[in-house]
């Protein structure tokens, strides 16, 4: 059964009671909360995801309400509070950020890069970069133009074969990128805005249904593009040295040190398999055209060889 089929009342009841089991392949999450706004965000954002019915969850998360005056939301994992509380209207984004933290900070079956990732024809386009570089905007644009969304924040490279496991969770849009995406695709569904977060105004975009339905399909890393938004600049691709690309990706990895030699070899293989580029993004439309050309040519090359 899908979250969207559960009905708002039943979903709220579970959130307040035994917990809402979410099958966010490859993980399971159990969520507890009394925030109505969080409940409606879950219905809206996770409608296409199945419910988890087992008794075991990878992460048991509570978004707890705190204080009557200036109410706040507190993130709890196993009763521990790794973060400061946030204003109550950030309860839903707090769940998303907290869950990212849970995955990046605990899971070791994947090399986890701080990178967005999308798939086309079985090949993965990896977009590493810190917050603010424009990876979410680009991710939203690509996901709305034929690419399959794997993740806008965490790239999971499977240790045994280096393939990318997607998450297809909502895409986090910040400040100007909200308008950019709305102009680009007025049909995109966004969560209500949370203002004055650590990243400014935040709205999340509902992941496309096919991306959620195809979560079990892995992708093979093929392109590594480091994006940088420079409004007004000419959009251009530049070849990156592999060593530089490797160091850049290693620095963006959450568990590079934990994985030791395994992580080093996996990342070296991944970079060797990809053509690394940097992408200066003047406008989203231009960037999509440039990436379309890049991925179309390398697909032809791959077929020819």
């Amino acid at each position, binding site marked *: 059964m899908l979250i969207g089929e559960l009905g708002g009342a039943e979903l709220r009841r579970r959130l307040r009671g035994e917990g809402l089991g979410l099958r966010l392949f490859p993980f*399971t999450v159990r969520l507890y909360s009394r925030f109505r706004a969080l409940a409606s965000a879950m219905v809206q954002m996770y409608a296409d995801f199945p419910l988890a019915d*087992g*008794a*075991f*969850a*990878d992460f*048991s998360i509570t978004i707890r309400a705190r204080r009557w005056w200036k109410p706040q939301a507190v*993130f709890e*994992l*196993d*009763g*521990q*509070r*790794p*973060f*400061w509380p*946030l204003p109550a209207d950030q309860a839903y984004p*707090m769940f998303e*950020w*907290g869950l*990212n*933290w849970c995955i990046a900070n*605990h*899971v*070791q*079956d994947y090399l986890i890069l701080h990178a967005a990732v999308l798939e086309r024809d079985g090949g993965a386009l990896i977009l590493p970069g810190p*917050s603010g570089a424009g990876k979410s905007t680009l991710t939203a644009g690509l996901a709305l133009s034929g690419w399959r969304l794997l993740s806008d924040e965490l790239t999971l490279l499977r240790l045994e074969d280096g393939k990318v496991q997607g998450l297809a969770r909502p895409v986090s849009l910040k400040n100007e990128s909200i308008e950019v995406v709305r102009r680009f695709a007025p049909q995109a569904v966004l969560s209500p805005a949370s203002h004055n977060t*650590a990243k400014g105004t935040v709205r999340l975009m509902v992941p496309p249904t096919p991306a959620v339905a195809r979560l079990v399909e892995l992708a093979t890393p093929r392109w590594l593009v480091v994006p940088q938004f420079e409004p007004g600049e000419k959009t251009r691709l530049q070849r990156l040295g592999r060593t530089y690309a490797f160091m850049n990706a290693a620095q963006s990895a959450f568990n590079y*040190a*934990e*994985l*030791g030699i395994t992580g080093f070899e996996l990342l070296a293989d991944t970079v060797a398999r990809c053509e690394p580029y940097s992408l200066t993004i003047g406008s989203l439309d231009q960037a999509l055209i440039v990436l379309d050309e890049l991925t179309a040519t390398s697909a032809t090359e791959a077929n020819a060889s």
Partner: protein
Amino acid sequence: MRHRPQPLLIRVLMQPSRMVRLSEGDWDLLVQQARASGLLGRLDWLARQLGPNAPLPAAPRAHLRWAARKAECCHRETRYEITCLRQALRRAGVPLVLLKGAAYVHAGLNPVHGRFFEDVDIMVPRNRLAAVESALMLAGWAPTHLDAYDQRYYREWMHELPPMEHHQRGTTVDVHHNILPLSGRLRPSAALLLRAVVPWPKAGTEDVYTLSPPDMVLHSASHLFHDGELAYGLRDLSDLDLLLRQLSADPAFWDTLVKRADQLMLGRPLFYAITCLVSLLDTPVPSALRRRVEVFAPPPLQRSLMLALLQRGLRPQHPSCNGVDIRVARFALYVRSHWLKMPPLRLIRHLLRKAVAREVATPAPR
């Protein structure tokens, strides 16, 4: 006293083979309790002792493995820190004596298994502190806690320098000159401790030392039952359990331990340690020894009160193990640890400062 079953995590630590009989719901609770208590990686080690074919469900098993992997990474880093510290201290002509986690890592003792350590602790003679501090600064460690109160707190009242942080690696070293605070109620002799240090030739370095095995146990016990804050009490108790099971393979060990506790005036923490280990984790302590540590027990009223508090304070830090009495016990033990650490007036001032300072810590999620 009202009967309450022991938390699942404690029952599993007491008898790890229980893991093969757990339901999916039990695993859900066990992983939560263990993660909150810093014991997930420890469970991985205990699970591995059950053999490669033990029927353990894959999803929860992965969480144990992940935590163990993080711990191994921490041990690699600790070994590298030990190499760097050894070079730095050689310049000061002071031998490197490792304490706590770094000592377990160096000596390859069982409490390392699945255990994550925050920083490296070392011990040097008090009259060499200045030389050591400048040698460490030359090697890249910089002092932290620079405000005047913190400096005074550490340098005059505590048994260690303010933590020193490496400017490139971000790693922290705590330089001790004793194992308990100078202003505290118990004052073991640092000279006795340093005279008994042992090298571990098998670790490949002749000139790196740890406290002697009984002293390691006493240090761990004092930390947990005297000046510690019990935040990860169950984890530290499990460390002691593994340490005692391993070290008591030497038939002379128990006798040396009790004599040494007497000599260092650390009998009281040893009494609490042995009593809690036997009752909570079923540590195999010979009954003759249990009788011998009775001489270190406090008067009956204090004894019952303390044991009641410890039974509660050592439960996993998880909502499933909470209750008003647990919270009261934790608070009482917290106050006690500070009470034993410094005189009353200084304590009040210190707690007030900490309460104000707490408002400016913890990060926001990204």
